[in-house]
């Protein structure tokens, strides 16, 4: 059947498949489809940079144009991963510079990127278009200058939330005068002032510019100049939103905003002064995304602004909005889908604002499309959580942080098991959950029983025993990422559910009770997992086997042991025959051996692999095995 269509036709058909899941399925149909598909796959997503090696990827997919990759575990955002842990992108850039001269896009998250890498990118890829560095670090503005100067067709340069060593603002002036291709520029994380005239000229000569996120150093008085040059902007991040209160500044700003009829997203607003907010009222009716999380504006002014934004879908705001502000939000913004409320004083023991669980309850009542929540507060009750769950059964992401660890239901002083239980029971589509407050093993039983679509779970200071962890690992069928800190989970649940870990991207456990002995056993018996112990107290074998490790990071991989582990990370090694060197050869041999021996049973192998590695980023792994069977 496959021979009745020429390859070009099949390739054309496959070009309509964008999802990795679909492409992976297609590649398993037969040998020729596998071959055709691998030559025409253009986009690769790698959820964990250590799950696979550059060589393996390049060998299988020779014509990649876009790479998206993530490095450090999520808890690195909160300083739980020590400096020097890893996540270096340079080996990938080096390998791709030789293999993918036509590469156009690189999107990285939580990776270490150096100026050397940026220079290599700028030199190697003639048609480079998109660079997104999200929460990355390790580079300076010199590296940015290379990108600006050499990437002739650059469309996107987005540095969101990265830590950049800011040597000077001069990098922006490296964009050549004939660069007119920019569509998106996000420099909001940088500190230094760029040359305003260079910025102005850049903006003026890029007619397709849709997204412009300025940094704090761009003064408010100058914003109208930019808006006039780019009235087609769809997303704007202002610089500092404060200036001397002068009527001319205000009127210039008002006029400039009125010209921007396409604006849908606003962010920035550092040091925002309420007096200048009315300047943007003319665009509010079109705004769907509003990020006020840097604006220390108080509730009444926030309410005035937000009530103008009738079409708001996403709001990020500080807890200055308070319960009254959230009530007003619930009344005005019926299209709201995502709400994030950040704490203005995260370390203060007492509340500094009148924001409680009531605010979230109001929004859950008033906003029928609410599906994504991140909420920091200082008190919560089971009753409130039950109400929220019943109001919004279509919730997809629910992240609640009660600032005091192990805080009970403030009304009944009971654990919040019932409340979170109601969330997972009612919200059947829930994909992401972060919990806080006083929680016993009971809540994990609810999660294991009900949260069947849950993909990512974050737990802190919760549970009583291994039973809690066991419920999660044995019950949550769709679980991909599990991150745990400061919970009394030990060896038993982990070892009893070792196989589950191969179906997940990763597991993080810090300040728990997993012993060194258990980590060793896990590493020995599970060759397709990297079991890494992070311990800054020194080698784990200098302490008794029963001693708990500081931090444990377990992830599935076909690349074997990584070659870049720092001194405080130890890989728990297996059997000599199965332990891998950095090149990742050994595990592949095992896979090949198994494959050829059981070639007749390839159907079985297929069903085995598909069942044990159902998720996207492991399908590449699965297909590696397949390849050898078709030899």
């Amino acid at each position, binding site marked *: 059947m496959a021979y009745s269509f020429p390859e070009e036709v099949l390739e054309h058909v496959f070009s309509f498949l964008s999802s990795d899941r679909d492409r992976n399925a297609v590649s398993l149909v037969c040998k020729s489809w596998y071959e055709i598909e691998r030559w025409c796959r253009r986009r690769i997503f790698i959820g964990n940079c250590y799950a696979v090696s550059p060589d393996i990827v390049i060998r299988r997919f020779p014509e990649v144009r876009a790479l998206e990759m993530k490095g450090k575990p999520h*808890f690195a955002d*909160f*300083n739980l991963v020590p400096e020097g842990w890893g996540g270096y992108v340079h080996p990938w850039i080096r390998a791709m510079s030789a293999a993918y001269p036509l590469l156009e896009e690189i999107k990285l998250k939580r990776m270490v990127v150096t100026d050397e890498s940026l220079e290599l990118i700028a030199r190697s890829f003639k048609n480079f278009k998109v660079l997104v560095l999200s929460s990355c670090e390790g580079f300076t503005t010199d590296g940015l200058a290379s990108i600006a100067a050499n990437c002739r067709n650059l469309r996107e340069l987005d540095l969101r*939330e990265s830590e950049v060593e800011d040597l000077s603002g001069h990098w922006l002036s490296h964009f050549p005068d004939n660069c007119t291709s920019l569509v998106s520029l996000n420099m909001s*994380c940088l500190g230094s002032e760029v040359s305003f005239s260079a910025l102005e000229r850049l903006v003026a000569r890029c007619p397709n510019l849709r997204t412009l996120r300025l940094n704090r150093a761009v003064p408010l008085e100058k914003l109208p100049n930019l808006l006039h040059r780019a009235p087609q902007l769809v997303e704007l991040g202002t610089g500092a939103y*404060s200036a*001397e209160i002068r009527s001319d500044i205000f009127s210039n700003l008002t006029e400039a905003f009125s010209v921007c009829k396409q604006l849908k997203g606003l962010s920035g607003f550092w*040091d925002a*002064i*309420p*007096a200048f907010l009315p300047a943007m009222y003319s665009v509010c009716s079109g705004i769907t995304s509003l990020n006020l*999380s*840097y604006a*220390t504006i108080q509730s009444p002014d926030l309410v005035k602004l937000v009530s103008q934004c009738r079409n708001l879908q996403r709001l990020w705001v500080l807890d200055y909005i308070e319960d009254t502000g959230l009530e007003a939000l619930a009344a005005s913004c019926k299209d709201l889908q995502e709400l994030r409320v950040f*704490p*203005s004083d*995260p*370390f203060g*023991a007492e509340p500094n604002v009148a924001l409680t669980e009531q605010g979230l309850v109001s929004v859950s009542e008033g906003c029928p499309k609410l599906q994504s929540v991140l909420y*920091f507060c200082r008190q919560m009750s089971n009753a409130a959580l039950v109400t929220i769950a019943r109001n919004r059964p279509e919730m997809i992401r629910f992240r609640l*942080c009660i*600032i005091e660890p192990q805080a009970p239901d403030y009304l009944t002083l009971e654990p919040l098991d019932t409340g979170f239980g109601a969330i997972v029971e009612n919200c059947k589509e829930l994909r992401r959950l*972060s919990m806080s407050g006083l929680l016993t093993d009971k809540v994990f039983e609810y999660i294991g029983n009900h949260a069947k679509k849950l993909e990512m779970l*974050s737990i802190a200071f919760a549970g*009583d*025993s291994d*039973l809690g962890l*066991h419920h999660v690992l*044995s019950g949550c069928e769709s679980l991909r990422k599990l991150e745990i*800190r*400061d919970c009394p989970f*030990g*060896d*038993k*649940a982990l*070892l*009893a*559910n*070792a*196989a*589950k870990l*191969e179906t997940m991207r990763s597991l993080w456990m810090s*300040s728990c*009770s997993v012993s060194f002995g258990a980590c060793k056993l*896990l590493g020995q*018996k*599970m060759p397709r997992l990297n079991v890494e112990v992070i311990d800054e*107290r020194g080698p784990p074998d200098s302490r008794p086997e029963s*001693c*708990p490790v*500081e931090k444990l990071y377990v992830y599935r991989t076909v690349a074997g042991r990584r070659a870049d582990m720092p001194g405080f990370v130890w890989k728990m090694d297996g059997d000599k025959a199965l332990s891998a060197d950095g090149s990742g050869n050994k595990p592949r041999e095992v896979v090949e051996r*198994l494959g050829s021996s*059981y070639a007749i*049973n390839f159907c*079985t*192998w297929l*069903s*085995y692999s598909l*069942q*044990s590695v159902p998720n996207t980023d492991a399908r590449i792994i699965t297909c590696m095995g397949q390849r050898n069977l078709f030899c």
Partner: protein
Amino acid sequence: MELQLELALSSSSARGSDPNQDCERRRKRSFDAAFLGIMGSVGAPQTSPLLIWDDKEQINGELHDQKRIYDLATSNRNGRVEDDVLVGWPPVKSWRKQFRHHSRRDCATNYVDVENGSGGGGGGRGLNSMYVKVKMEGVGIGRKVDLSIHRSYQTLIAKLIAMFGKFEDNAETYKLTYQDMEGDWLLAGDMPWETFVHSAQRLKLQKNGY
């Protein structure tokens, strides 16, 4: 309870069925047989668990032991400097903490300007004061001190010693530490006074030799 660290083929343990039933039957399989044996049986997807989960025993006996191990573990832990300081909690990214506190102080000043309609900071000292909590190691009740009225570390330390009166004689044996905007505890004195004043969130006098 005895740990049963076996490598038994289990097609059902991940699906929550009672492992006790299957336990005996599977005892005899070796690791290789279990692993490679999967090839022969359709629909047996999982590799073996490294421990058989025994529901009855786990629920009853272990809570006590678990808590004990946990407490032991807590005492070994890095990164926990004192009771009220936890690394990475609340889970807020560091650049969020920084901007916020910076802005709050500026905001106070700006608010004053708007009200008065002039550039001057005439709104009164109240809005510009910088009270931070101070604790002394070994003293139950903390104090608050206004950093904005001091001009150097010396005057601040003198004020603190005066506040915690009875320790005057032992001034040498204490050192001043502070918590910065990222939640880290640092020794005071390394940075210029102005920078210190803007970064310090709370202070603690700690005994030397800590």
